[in-house]
């Protein structure tokens, strides 16, 4: 009886200790942020300039890019941050320009795209950056040798 009690106590304390001392990194890794419910959005629909109109798509781009910036996920392309695309679209809407200029990091013009295309891109970039980050929370281990990556 004494022996059983002793063994029981040992087992319980070991289990408690191991669980208390264990790293919480896996729990953190599986903590998937919602990013404003972005998972349910369909980029092809929300960012469709023809159907939704430039202003509505731009509003989505602005809304989700703020979240992307807050979470250090903002996309950039050809030296321009997505927020720069959004600023350029806003400026073009005010001035009536139909194109926006692509500038590199030295602010030198490297090309131009239509206002509609830039708006689509800004919206798609903003939403995709968040959806991709959500997806990665469950997929990143698939690339780790010795973990999810098999060869």
């Amino acid at each position, binding site marked *: 009886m*004494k022996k059983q*009690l*002793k063994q029981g*106590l*040992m087992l319980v*304390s*070991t289990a408690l*200790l*191991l669980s208390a*001392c264990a*790293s*919480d*990194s896996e729990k*953190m*890794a599986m903590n998937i942020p919602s990013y404003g419910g972005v998972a349910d959005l369909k980029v092809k629909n929300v960012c469709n300039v023809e159907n939704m109109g430039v202003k509505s798509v731009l509003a989505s781009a602005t809304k989700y890019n703020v979240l992307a*910036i807050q979470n*250090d*996920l*903002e*996309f*950039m*392309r050809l030296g321009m*941050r997505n927020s720069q695309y959004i600023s350029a679209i806003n400026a073009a809407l005010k001035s009536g320009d139909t194109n926006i200029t692509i500038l590199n990091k030295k602010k030198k013009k490297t090309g131009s795209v239509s206002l509609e295309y830039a708006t689509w891109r800004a919206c798609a*970039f903003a939403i*995709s*950056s968040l959806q*991709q*980050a959500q*997806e*990665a929370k469950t*997929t*990143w*281990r698939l*690339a*780790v*040798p*010795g*973990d999810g*990556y098999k*060869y």
Partner: protein
Amino acid sequence: MLLNIVKTTTLLVLSTCILHAGNFNAQAEKDRLALIDYFEAKFDDPLKNRNTFFPYSTDEELKNAFVTGLKHQDFAKGNYAFNKDGKAQYEEIKEMPPYEDDIDEGEALYNKTFSNGKSFASCFPNTQIAGDYPKYVQEEQKVLTLGIAINNCLLKNKEKKWKMSKGKMAKLQAFFAYESMEANKDVAIQINSKEAAAAYERGKEYYYTQRGYLKLSCASCHIQGAGQRVRNEKLSQLLGQTTHFPVYRLKWNGLGTLERRMVGCIKDEGQVPPSAESKYMKELLYFMAYMSNGMKIDGPDIRK
């Protein structure tokens, strides 16, 4: 009887905690050894292992362009470990390394006195420290990179801090790297606490997470993609990637720190990079450096 139970339980509690306390790097060690196995298998014989590792390369390339039979320490040279053409060009440049003056300037910076009469020696009495950073500072609960330690020293002595990417920062780090290499030092990153292990895990997650509009992770190029060709260059492997920084990059026409290189890589993925002093960057470098543990310091060096 009760006393005996209490005694046994206390002993068990203590020994479990002690065993666990010495084991904070268990997962990191497992990752590191798995990475070594992966790269040794990948570069053992690229032609023979084409289907597994190099499905898009030509027979000619796999037969003639790769050094075979590589082992752990060989990878300290980055992609010049396996890249025959690249290594030949590298060795030619190394005959007159363009960074020699930078090491001298780094040494002069180390010895230069601050306005208060002290110098960097007051913060870094030992100069063979390149393999010891990044380190986790338990009291501050954060990762400390060599660049930030240098800037902390400047601020502590009422000096202005330096840019993290190039210039004086890279030169002083080149001096530390050279001193460490001459002393035959290894990369020796420590994970001594639960918090440090968590920082390592976050850095690992950052490395393996797909990001940017190209949806690439660091691993896409430097693990699964290592050895594959992008235009005319072969991608380097994670193993040994931190041993040789700062590097003189021909593209930069000068010396740059590891942070500078990482900023460039993340931009290439299509994402706005984190700043050199951000938590993301520090933990990323912590993970990367741990993967090179046990490898010889080989910096500063040259890269294209």
